[in-house]
């Protein structure tokens, strides 16, 4: 039977789980070390030695942190293909000034690119590309991001530019926008540039991971799937912001529910999100990474100020948003502190066994009842947002504060799932992740029917999933959406498809 290890390298702890056929067989929690490597090695060494995982999946914040802290970033050159189109909006427009200063990127506009219907805007000019390659060689810049107008639908120009750059200067590493981002030229170029800036760090980080784990390595991506370690060295940007997705995916499988609301009750807040087909529903808005707008999408999470450390008002029973946070162990009544927290209420009501119960024996039933009323009203409002016509979704309750609210949710008549191992949902989410492929294409309605367009995008997503390592017969389509280019006399369609599948293990 296949064993897979999932590792979540968090800011505080590094969690590891060992999973066989979807079941957790062992887990470990150790402090994260500054070099990351030490924590991973320590976590893996706590797992039983008799069971060697076939693959290790790592969820990491290394690349997010590098971008946020503006460190370990390489200078990159942005080449925009499609002159004169988009010249009024040059690369890096809207970026935070300190990031622009920190990286010393360069920008070039070159001829080429396509219109929505595939007509060339201009012809590619090999000499133009050659001059750029030579200039970059002289300046010592080795990272290039190539973004072509309508490049997601017509990637040929980007591919050609990459070939020409490589033939001129073999030290250049080229990131192509159609492999990184979606429709929307600036966000796609932003993602591609950030990717280029991260690549040297990614190579170093991946080789550290490979030193720590001896088996095949996969890295978590922000869409809930994993990519092979070698791909992660080329596309580190996909690893950014994978944490929330992993934790919701983990909750989905641990709770055995594909359509559900996930409530993660922490010390200060409760994060709520909704699962559809086992994947978190994405937020409508674009994800900003280190102040730069990309067109990746994060799970649609709503955060409310209810957690184990939330202050409780004795008079009216209101809970939060202020919290004692990580100082619960000093300030909560049950630990000898002077602050009435939601944890104290739970202990007083006998829902939780923690600290010294005698210290909260004096809390009157009235205070508990008022806090309960308050929470019931808050949760009922929160949950109402996720109701679909006629059906109530079950709730998967995870996080350290789960016992605080479980009975209240049941009072509301809700089905509550409290999976085991909810504490390591994030590492578990990494372990069970599949691989995927995405396509974001445009079609002219004169040439292709809507059904055919949808089919072609779906096929392309499946093809890319196979390329990412999916076994063919396990692939399913998880997203398929189209939008028309309204206001045009001859219609055109944009179709986006995403497919996922199980990892095809080499020795199967």
């Amino acid at each position, binding site marked *: 039977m296949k064993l897979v290890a999932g590792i979540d390298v968090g800011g505080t702890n590094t969690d590891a789980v060992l999973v066989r056929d979807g079941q957790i067989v062992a887990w470990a929690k150790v402090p994260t070390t500054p070099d990351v490597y030490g924590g991973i090695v320590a976590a893996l060494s706590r797992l039983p030695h008799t069971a060697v995982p076939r693959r290790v999946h790592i969820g990491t914040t290394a690349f997010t942190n590098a971008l946020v802290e503006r460190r370990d970033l390489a200078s990159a050159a942005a080449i925009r293909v499609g002159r*004169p189109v*988009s010249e*009024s909006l040059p690369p890096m427009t809207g970026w935070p000034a300190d990031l622009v200063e920190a990286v010393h990127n360069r920008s070039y506009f070159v001829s080429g690119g396509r219109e929505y219907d595939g007509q060339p805007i201009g012809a590619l000019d090999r000499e133009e590309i050659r001059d750029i390659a030579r200039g970059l060689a002289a300046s010592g810049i080795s990272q290039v991001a190539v973004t072509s107008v309508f490049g997601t639908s017509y990637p040929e120009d980007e591919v050609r530019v990459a070939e020409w750059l490589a033939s001129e200067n073999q030290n250049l590493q080229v990131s192509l926008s159609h492999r990184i981002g979606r429709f929307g*030229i600036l966000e796609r170029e932003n993602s591609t540039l950030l990717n280029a800036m991260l690549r040297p760090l990614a190579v170093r980080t991946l080789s550290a991971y490979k030193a720590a784990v001896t088996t095949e390595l996969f890295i978590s991506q922000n869409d809930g799937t994993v990519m092979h370690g070698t791909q992660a060295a080329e596309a580190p940007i996909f690893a950014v912001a994978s944490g929330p997705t992993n934790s919701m995916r983990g909750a989905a499988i641990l709770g055995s529910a594909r359509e559900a609301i996930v409530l993660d009750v922490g010390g200060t807040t409760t994060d709520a999100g*909704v699962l559809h087909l086992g994947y978190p529903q994405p937020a409508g808005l674009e994800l900003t990474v280190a102040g730069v707008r990309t067109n990746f999408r994060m799970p649609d999470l709503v955060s409310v100020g209810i957690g184990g450390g939330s202050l409780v008002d004795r008079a009216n029973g209101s809970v939060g948003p202020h919290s004692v946070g990580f100082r619960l162990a000093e300030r909560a009544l049950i630990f000898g502190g002077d602050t009435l927290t939601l944890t104290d209420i739970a202990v007083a009501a006998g829902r939780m066994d923690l600290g010294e119960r005698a210290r909260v024996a004096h809390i009157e039933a009235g205070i508990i009842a008022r806090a309960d009323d308050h929470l019931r009203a808050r949760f009922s409002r929160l949950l109402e947002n*996720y109701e679909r016509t006629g059906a109530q979704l079950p709730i998967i309750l995870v996080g350290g504060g789960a016992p605080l609210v479980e009975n209240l949710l049941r009072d509301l008549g809700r089905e509550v799932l409290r999976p085991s191992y909810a504490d390591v949902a994030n590492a578990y989410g990494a372990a069970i992740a599949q691989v995927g492929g995405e396509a974001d294409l445009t079609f002219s309605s004169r040439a292709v029917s809507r059904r055919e367009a949808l089919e072609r995008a779906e096929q392309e997503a499946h093809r890319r999933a196979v390329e990412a390592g999916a076994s063919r017969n396990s692939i399913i389509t998880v997203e398929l959406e189209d939008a028309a280019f*309204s*206001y*045009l006399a001859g219609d055109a369609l944009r179709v986006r498809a995403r497919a996922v599948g199980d990892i095809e293990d080499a020795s199967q």
Partner: protein
Amino acid sequence: MSFEIRSSDITALALGSSVLGCGGGGNSYYGQLVAHRVLAADVVVPVIDVDEMAPESFAITAAAVGAPLVCLEKPPSLPALQAGLESVRSALCGPVSAFFAAEIGGLQCIFPVLLAAEVGLPVLDGDSMGRAFPELQMTTFSIYGTTHGLPHALSGDRGLISPDMVQRNHSGEPESPDDPPGIRFERAVRKICTAHGGLIYFTSAFDQKSLNHTLVRGSISLALCIGRAIESARQGNMDPIGAIVEAGDGKRFIGGKIVDVERQFRAGHDWGTVRIHGVEEDRGRVAEIAFKNEYLVLGLNGEVVLTVPDLITLAETESGTPVSTDILRPGLRVTVLGLPASPLLTKAVALKSVGPGAFGYNLGYVPLRKSE
């Protein structure tokens, strides 16, 4: 009363204008970024009332014609706007004294600001819709017959589009006596746009006298006022929906969540219906809104309570962020608002072009407020 637009006002202007966009008008994010660049280094654009224009002078409007989706790959082009401006200016017999927006709703309100900043002239506090509409004949100018005889130009990223092309496409269309004024021109421009990469710019000039009686006045200040109200409500943890209602002299109809979106693409437009179930105080109520790029007809529990040309707009309940028709999806928490249309749009002659009938609905105009 005159005032100035600075770089720091662009976000509020865009936010307010997308409320007035009624779900359409295009995504203005790239336009805002270009505006921030043009208005950098303390460039300011004065905003004046049409009465402040010199009587013999002209004001120029520039608008994008085409697919909002194309704008995401082909951002607003300053050279295209300048090419249109140069062509129109050279054909005028008097001076240009200002720029103005054809459409306050959405992306279009940015273009006159870009030109005004580059040329160093003011923008007029007004537009030709007071909202967003999908087609060129739906402007107050077309409705009141002021389009004829003045120069116009079409341009694209690569410069001016030959006037011959406009003529050729113009004359080929049969016209029925029932067509609203300007519809032939709309069709011609739409065809040229489709052949030119799906996005072109339309520039035209109007004299002060025509503007005086056809401009929807105060729309720039209204957009700014609504945008600032949303921003300050957010900062002060106040209700952004209430802020929009107050700033826009509007009415809140229902707060709820989207349960269903049906859409189909017909003849180049995005048609559909969005269904919203009320929550909290509106529990048990159901809203149904028909849209064609913009929200057109609002039904509440089966009864039509508001129609075009009045403004039907959706905002995210929590943030007050306007919700355009292209991002509608089940689960989104929204509030439905109505704002009154300009009186220029609600006269009988105007309703022929912009009332429910102009969009194919067999309905009379249902206004926000009964006329006195």
